[in-house]
């Protein structure tokens, strides 16, 4: 008799991971899924062997394990889909009660299914064959999607950039430069939108900065409303459509933009001036693994925190209801690490340093209260997951905590013999929340935070009124370079990601007072 090969449990174990990768292939690197795949395969193997021993049948054990895997990996998806059609807030249930209503039937189905497979006297050889094919077809469909991306849409860096790529950085100049700190507080809104949209007065922090010698750009705007465009354009000192060849590149291809961020002229220029470069990472793919960095700090490995992919994968599993309970601490530790590293930076006389810090605050997920107390918002997602809606109190809470931590950092950084250049500039506005008209939309998305501290005030020209594409042009000019300033513009990106529309006029007028 032909022996039945049982491989469906292993395919069903890897399918959810491969599917998630396939669905987000243009924003992920393959190495992200290696560990989850290894864990899934080895865990499945172990449980299957043990269960096979207990049930004295590997075929039966295979079915019970497969059923368990389906329940484990689909629970989060079912929860999210259910919430789309029957939102928690409409049903007026709390998060855990909603989960309980779903969890009990899922558990009962699993128990009944397992009971059937354990007790049945029927040979399950044909059923194994059928389920093997189903599982294989699921994996193959996802692999085709991944293959298609790698064949048709994966670009090399040379194809992406329409500017010449320097092969190596030549260090030519002396090191008589000040230290430079560039701190990105992700989604930190400017005071204009905080006041106008949320009636929040941030003057306590602004006054603190002013007393420390900072200038605050009161009507600052970002060039784009998303990190993936803002960061590469800032670090290329140019608009993204001038930096990447948008005729050939799909702007939806996040990986192309990540590559652009990583290989940027700002870091190269600092390097060529003899700077030591520190990159304080947030975990965001847009600022991780940057090229030309001497010291990477607060990496996912350092802080034992999850990558965005790991976090999303867990969100889709049965661990969903307790994800924040299990992983919020690591998330908080990662954010605190960023502030700690800034605080620990020493004034080193040997070489000047450029510190590039990306801190995921006050951006989602909401894990801190105003004084740093841990809070559980029920989600660790960076995106609006459709379940945990915009919550201005939580956003302001994290903003106030960012203020608190930044005060400590600023106190420390300004207490040095040789003053540093410090730029605090968010990549975009608060972005979430309701808006009644186009101008309010622009305020929520583009009104970012910008404060700067220049020791040599005479050289500070135009910084207050310019947008992030010019920030490093001005800064390098202060260090002796001669960059021309670009015209300040703002762009919205179409939903398909294939168009950029100039909406600069909407930022300048109408005056918000006119809309009162």
């Amino acid at each position, binding site marked *: 008799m032909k022996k039945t090969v049982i491989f469906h449990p292993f395919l069903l174990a890897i399918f959810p991971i491969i*599917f*998630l990768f396939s*669905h*987000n292939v243009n*924003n*992920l690197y393959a190495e992200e899924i290696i560990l989850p795949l290894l864990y899934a395969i080895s865990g499945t193997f172990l449980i299957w062997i043990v269960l096979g021993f207990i049930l004295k049948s590997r075929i039966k054990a295979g079915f019970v394990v497969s059923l368990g895997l389906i329940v484990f990996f*689909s629970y*989060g*998806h*079912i929860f*999210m*889909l259910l919430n*789309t059609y029957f939102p928690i807030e409409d049903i007026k249930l709390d998060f855990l009660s909603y989960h309980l209503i779903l969890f009990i039937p899922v558990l009962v189905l699993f128990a009944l299914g397992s009971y059937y497979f354990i007790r049945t006297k029927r040979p399950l050889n*044909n059923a194994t*064959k*059928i*389920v093997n*094919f*189903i*599982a294989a*077809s*699921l994996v193959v*469909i*996802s692999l085709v999607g991944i293959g298609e991306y790698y064949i048709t849409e994966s670009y090399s860096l040379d194809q992406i950039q329409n500017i010449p790529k320097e092969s190596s950085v030549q260090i030519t100049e002396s090191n008589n430069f000040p230290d430079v700190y560039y701190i990105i507080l992700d989604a930190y809104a400017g005071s204009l939108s905080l006041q106008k949209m949320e009636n929040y007065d941030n003057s306590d922090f602004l006054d603190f900065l002013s007393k420390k010698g900072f200038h605050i750009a009161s009507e600052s705007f970002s060039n784009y*409303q*998303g*990190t*993936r*465009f803002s960061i590469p354009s800032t670090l290329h000192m140019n608009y993204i459509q001038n930096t990447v060849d948008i005729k050939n590149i799909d*702007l*939806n291809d*996040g990986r192309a*933009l990540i590559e652009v961020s990583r290989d940027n002229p700002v870091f190269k220029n600092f390097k060529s001036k003899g700077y030591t470069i520190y990159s304080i990472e947030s975990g965001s793919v847009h600022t991780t693994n940057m090229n030309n960095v001497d010291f990477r700090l607060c990496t996912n490995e350092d802080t034992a925190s999850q990558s*965005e992919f790991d976090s*999303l994968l867990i969100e*889709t599993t049965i661990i969903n209801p307790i994800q924040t309970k299990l992983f919020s601490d690591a998330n908080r530790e990662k954010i605190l690490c960023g502030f700690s590293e800034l605080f620990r930076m020493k004034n080193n006389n040997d070489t000047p340093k450029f510190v590039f810090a990306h801190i995921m605050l006050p951006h989602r997920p909401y894990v801190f209260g105003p004084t740093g107390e841990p809070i559980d918002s029920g989600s660790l*997602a*960076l*995106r609006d997951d459709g379940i945990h809606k915009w919550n201005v109190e939580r956003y302001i809470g994290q903003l106030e905590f960012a203020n608190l931590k930044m005060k400590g950092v600023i106190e420390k950084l300004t207490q040095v013999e040789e003053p540093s250049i410090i730029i605090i500039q968010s990549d975009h506005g608060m*972005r979430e929340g309701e808006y009644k*008209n*186009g*101008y309010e*939309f*622009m305020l929520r998305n583009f009104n970012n935070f910008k404060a700067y501290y220049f020791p040599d005030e005479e050289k500070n020209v135009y910084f207050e009124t310019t947008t992030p594409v010019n920030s490093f042009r001005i800064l390098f000019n202060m260090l002796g370079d001669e960059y021309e300033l670009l015209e300040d513009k703002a762009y*919205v*990106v*179409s*939903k*398909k*990601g294939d168009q950029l*529309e100039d*909406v600069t*006029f*909407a930022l300048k*007028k*109408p005056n918000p*007072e*006119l809309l*009162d």
Partner: protein
Amino acid sequence: MVKISSRIKIQIAAISLLLPAFIISDAYAYLDPGSGSIVIQSIIGALVGVGIAIKVYWEKVKMKFYSIRK
């Protein structure tokens, strides 16, 4: 009360018309769970299963029909 000039009104109208096409979600580029897609993919998988089941049990089904006709 401050009057809104007609130029500004046109600008507001222009932005409002523009917005539906440019209100983005995808452009933020956060990873997406793809819950809808996984359901569709699972349905395709189930259809494959039905096809294989028919193939596997075809002889039995045929025999059953044959015996009924007799």
